[in-house]
C-alpha cells in the first residue's frame, strides 16, 4: 500500500528571509562593534598620558580589529562570488 504526500511550496520563503535577518544582524553588529573597539583603542593609544604597556595593548587591539574587519569583508565577497 502506498500513500501520496503532497508537499506545497510556501508562498513566502521564510527560511531565506530569516537567514537574511540572522546573517545581516550578525555581520552588521559584529563589524560595527569591532570597528568601534578599534576606534576606542586608537583613541587610548593616541593619549599622551597612557602607560607604555597599555599603548602596546591598544595598538594590538587596533591591528586585530582592522584585520578582523578586512577578513570578514574579504570572506563575505569570496562566499558571494563562489557559492
Amino acid at each position: 500500500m502506498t500513500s501520496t504526500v503532497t508537499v506545497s511550496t510556501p508562498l513566502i520563503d521564510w527560511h531565506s528571509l530569516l537567514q537574511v535577518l540572522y546573517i545581516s544582524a550578525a555581520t552588521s553588529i559584529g563589524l560595527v562593534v569591532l570597528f568601534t573597539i578599534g576606534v576606542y583603542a586608537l583613541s587610548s593609544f593616541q593619549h599622551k598620558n597612557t602607560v607604555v604597556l597599555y599603548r602596546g595593548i591598544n595598538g594590538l587591539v587596533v591591528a586585530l580589529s582592522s584585520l578582523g574587519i578586512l577578513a570578514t569583508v574579504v570572506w563575505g565577497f569570496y562566499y558571494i562570488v563562489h557559492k
Partner: protein
Amino acid sequence: MHNTFLLALVVVVAVGFDFTNGFHDTANAVAPSIATGALKPRAAVLLSSVLNVVGALISLKVAATVASGIVSQGDIILPVVFAGLIGAIAWNVTTWYFAIPSSSSHALIGGVVGAMMAHAGASSVLWGGLVGKVLAPSIAAPVFALVIAALATTMSRRLTKKSHDATKSWGMRAGQIGSSSLLSIAHGTNDAQKTMGVITLALIANGTLVANASTPMWVVLLCGIAIGLGTYIGGWRVIRTMGQGFTRLSPTQGFASQITSSAVILTSSHFGMPLSTTYVATGSILGSGIGTKKRSVRWSLAGRVGLAWLITLPCAGACGAVSFYCARLMGYSLGVVVVGVVLALYCLFIFLRSRRDKINASNVNDRWGAHSEAFQRSTAIAETPKDQDELVAV
C-alpha cells in the same frame, strides 16, 4: 526587421531606465558620507559609480529572479517590456523631482506587471513570485535594517562614550569611506541586475534567447556602465533628503547605517531576492536616528516617504498599462515611438522645472528646510543647542 527595431528600442529604453536608477539611487550609498563630511560630494559619487559597475559584475542571481519569477515568459512580448520600462522611468523621474527616495526596483517591477496585465490579463502575472520574491522581502528588509542599525548605533555610541571626540570623529569618517564603498558594490549587485533581467526578458520575448537562458555578458557590461554613469551624475535632490532630511547624521550613525545596509543588501542578493535598496538604506538611516540618545527622527517626512512607497507599485503599474494601451492603439511600431517621444518630453519638462529649485554638489549639505520654509515647518524637529551637543557626542 520590425522585431529588431523594437528590440533595439527596448534595449535603449532599458539602458535609460538603468541610468535613472543610478542617479535616483546614488543617495543610498553616498548620502550619509556626504552628510557627515566623510567624503566630498563629487568624490563620493565618483567612487560610488565605479564600485556600482564592479558590483554589477559580481553576482547574477537577482537578474535571474527578475527574468523568470515575476511574469510568465511565454506570454511576454516586446511592447510589454517597453511599456513597463516607460512606466518605471516616468515614476523614477517624478519621485526624483519631489526628492522622494522611492524604489526604482518596485517602479520597474510595477511597470512590467501593469503592462503585462494590460496585454494578457492578470493570469499572466506570477502572483506567487511577485508576493514571495518581491513584496515580502521588500517589506521585511527595511524593518530588519531599521532594527539592526538602531542596535548597532546604540552599541557603538555606548562603546565610544569615553573616547576622544577628535579621534572618534576621524575614525568613524574613515570607516564611512569603507562602508560607503561596500554599499556601492552592494547596490551594483542588486539594482543593476534588475535591468539585466528585463533586457534578458526582452531577448527571450524576441526569440533571440531561449526561455530560462542566462544573461549575456554584453547585457551585464551595458547595464553596469549605465548604472555607473547615472550614479556619477548624482541625484542630488534625493541625496539631500536621505542625508539631511530624516535625521542629523553623525559619523557614528553614518557608519552604522551604511554597514547595515551593505550587509542586508548583499545577503539578500546572495539569496536572489530583488529587494529595494532604497528602502533598506532608508530603514538603516531611520534606525541610526532611533539609536541616538534623543531618538531624533523626522517622522512626518518618513511618513510621507512611506506613503510614496505604498503607491509606487500601483502607480508605475498604471503608467505601464496606459503606455501599453497607447502603443497598441497606434499600432506597435508607431505607438512605441510616440510613447517614447512623450516620455522624453516629460523628462525634459521635469528637468527644466527642477532648475527652479536647483540642488547640486554645492548646496546638497545645506541645513534641511533651507530651500522651502513651508516644508521646513511641516517636517521640523526640535534642534535646540542641547540636541546639537548630543549629536556631536554620539
